[in-house]
C-alpha cells in the first residue's frame, strides 16, 4: 500500500519534472536554465494548490535538474525512465545523509544522469 501512496507519486514527480524541463527546452527552444526554473515553479505551484504534498517538492526539483541533460541519446524516453528510477533509489539511499547540505539534490541528479547515460552508452 505504501508503494502506491508514497513511492509511485514520488517517481512520477521526478519523471514529470524531467520531461517538462526537456519539453520546454527542446520544443519551445528556451534556455535550459529558464526551462528548469519554469518547470520547477510550475510543478511546485501545481503541487501546492492541487496535490498538496510538500514531500514531492524535492523530487520535482531533482527531476528538473536531470531534464537539463542535453547529451544526445537514442531514446530520451529510456533515459527519462532509467534516470527517474536511479534518482528515486539514490534519494532513498541518501535520505538520512547530507541533510541540510546545499546541492545534494543536484548531486543525486548528476550521478543518476551519468549512470543512465553510461548504461545507454551515450557519448559524454
Amino acid at each position, binding site marked *: 500500500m505504501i508503494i502506491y501512496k508514497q513511492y509511485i507519486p514520488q517517481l512520477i514527480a521526478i519523471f514529470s519534472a524531467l520531461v517538462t524541463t526537456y519539453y520546454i527546452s527542446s520544443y519551445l527552444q528556451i*534556455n535550459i*536554465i*529558464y526551462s*528548469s*526554473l519554469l518547470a*520547477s*515553479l510550475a510543478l*511546485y505551484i501545481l503541487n501546492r494548490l492541487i496535490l498538496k504534498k*510538500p514531500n514531492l*517538492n*524535492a523530487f*520535482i*526539483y531533482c527531476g528538473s*535538474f*536531470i*531534464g*537539463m*541533460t*542535453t*547529451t544526445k541519446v537514442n531514446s530520451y524516453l529510456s533515459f527519462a525512465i532509467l534516470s527517474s528510477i536511479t534518482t528515486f533509489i539514490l534519494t532513498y539511499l541518501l535520505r538520512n545523509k*547530507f541533510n*541540510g*547540505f*546545499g*546541492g*545534494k*539534490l*543536484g*548531486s*543525486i*541528479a*548528476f*550521478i*543518476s*544522469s*551519468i549512470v543512465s*547515460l553510461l548504461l545507454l552508452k551515450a557519448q*559524454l
Partner: protein
Amino acid sequence: MTIFISLALSIITIALTRYLLIIRKFDAIISSILSSILMIIFIKLIEYFFGLNMNQYLIYIYGASFIGMSTIKILTYQWIYSCAFIFVFFLNQLSLYIEGVGGILGFSAFVSVITIKVIQLTYRKLI
C-alpha cells in the same frame, strides 16, 4: 573580469537565497527558485541599461542558489560565502571535461559546501 562578476553574482545569490530561507521562512526549494528568478531579472536589467551580455552568468546564479539552500546548522553566515570561490573554480574546471549532463551545477555546489564544511570543522579543531 568574468571571474569577478561570476563570484559577485554567486555571493549575492547565496545571500538572497539565505534571506528568503531563513528570514522570510520560505521552503528551501522555493527560496532557490525565487532567488534565481530575482537575480535573472537583475542581470536582465543590467543587460538593458548597460548593453552587456550577461547570459554566461546564468549558470553561476542558478548553482549559487543551491549553496544558499544549506541550513545554518551546516554552514553559518561567516562560512557560506566562501563556497562561492570553490563553486566558481570547480564548475569552470568540471565544465572542461563534462558537458550537457544534468545536475552539474548542483554537484559543483555540493562539492563547494562539503569542502568549506571540512575546512570549518578542521579550523574548529585547531583553535
